[in-house]
């Protein structure tokens, strides 16, 4: 049995955007005032100047943006971040990216292999799919060989045209 690929949060991204663009973050857009929200806002428009009466429709966000800032995590974050305390901590990189069309800054982990030395404020980056963590299924946890369990998928950023 193969591991199930499950988004860490449902509805925030797709691996198969409707415009054929592959992996994309998903937001919502208010039809009355054009405000865009990420994480998606499905209940009400949060723009105080919105005339009202609009509907919030799902919209894929810009595939690219520019680095607003970045950092890394040299110490293991507390729960609910999932990590195995038996495995030495591997720092990960966080990137805040200003998306081109929406003019919003989205925070995400960098793709594997992208460290702070590979980044600069203003650099162009693209969003890609990635794996946040994997959880073994019950068969595997009990010692039986196999590959059951869950692969938690997420979004990641990486410099356009290189660095992996």
């Amino acid at each position: 049995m193969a591991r199930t690929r499950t988004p860490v949060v449902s509805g925030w991204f797709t691996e198969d955007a409707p415009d054929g663009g592959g992996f994309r973050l998903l937001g919502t857009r208010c039809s009355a005032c054009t405000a865009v929200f990420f994480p998606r806002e499905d209940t009400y428009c949060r723009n105080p100047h919105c005339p009202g009466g609009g509907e919030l429709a799902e919209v894929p966000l810009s595939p690219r943006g520019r680095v607003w800032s970045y950092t890394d995590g040299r110490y293991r974050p507390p729960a609910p971040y999932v990590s195995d305390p038996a495995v030495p901590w591997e720092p990960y990189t966080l990137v805040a990216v200003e998306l081109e069309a929406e003019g919003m800054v989205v925070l995400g982990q960098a793709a594997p292999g992208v460290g702070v030395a590979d980044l600069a404020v203003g650099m162009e980056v693209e969003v890609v799919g990635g794996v946040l963590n994997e959880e073994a299924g019950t068969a595997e946890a009990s010692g039986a060989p196999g590959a059951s369990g869950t692969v938690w998928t997420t979004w990641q950023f990486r410099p356009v045209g290189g660095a992996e």
Partner: protein
Amino acid sequence: MSADIAVLGAGMHPWGKWGRSFVEYGRAAARSALADAGLDWTAVQSIVGANTVRSGYPGYVAGATFARALGWQGARVTSVYAACASGAQAIGAARAQILAGLADVVLVVGADAAPKGFFAPAGGDRPDDPDWLRFRVLGATNPAYFALYARRRMALHGDTPEDFAQVKVKNAAAGLLNPYARYRKQVTAEEVAASAVVADPLRLLDICATSDGGAALVLTSMEFARARGVADPVRIRAVSTVTPGYPRTVLDLPDIATDSARAVAPSAGSFRSSIARAAYEEAGLGPEDLSLAEVYDLSTALELEWYEDIGLCGEGEGAKLVREGATALGGRIPVNTSGGLASFGEAVPAQAIAQVCELTWQLRGTAGERQVPGARAGITANQGLFGHGSAVVAVR
């Protein structure tokens, strides 16, 4: 502009890792503030508690918890929570009661017993909670956000890690002189540079620790103070409590994204600058009138940003101010004369109250070796999760 209220008493429990209940710290701070005011607890007509959310059930009902610990006496009671701005909102609630004529004497108390290490969200699976989500999905701790601001300052304004370290050196030098501070020793720039990186570019000594601690104030109407023979008390002239404007374009705790700036053009100025602006407008004074300021130095780099946000200098000029020594004790406009969170650490519901304790002692001229000569006016500034921003202006 609104009417003044008087600060008759200020008190603290020393900060540190004492391993006791927040109730004990709050009670000790309250009794110290009452003694300072020369008032018995039974003279207090209203108690306002700033809530802690990590100390079990009584933490959520802090006002009554402190009232019980001091001995039930029938006072009006209020409990408030606004994350890191809880203490300022408790002061705001007390002031509103005094100005509305609901009470003449109000005791404000905040205390916490903070866990070691990173702050983390409350337990359980709560995918609707932004604070839970940023840990689960990104592993983004508070220092990660501080580091994002620090890195951006380096890119935009040319700040260096050495500039950041100077803030720690300065605040440690002030904290050394404060008997309530947790850390009371000098720190050198070399020691900051030698400490471990937590979130690049910030190191351990750039980031404030978590602590236990308590702080309390006795606030009264001006009439009550005069009737007690206190003709010229320290006065609270403004308490701002503001939310951001839409669209918020600076990534803030605990959010994963900012608002889009496409549907509505962002207004001038940052959320943080609007916190101080509202307080200045209410107080009828400006940054040029200040003798000192207490700001939330959650990280060294963030303190430089506050200089700009409270109007001590222009945007991007914060590092220049610390390099010149303007914000050190003895400088033109000392900031964090108490030693700041760098010397105290975070005891969330207490820290905004502790800032006003420091203003009180400075404006009375009783701050000892860290006294700002002739202090006449001061501002505090703080910011809490989920869009809470508060500032207090006190004058003499």
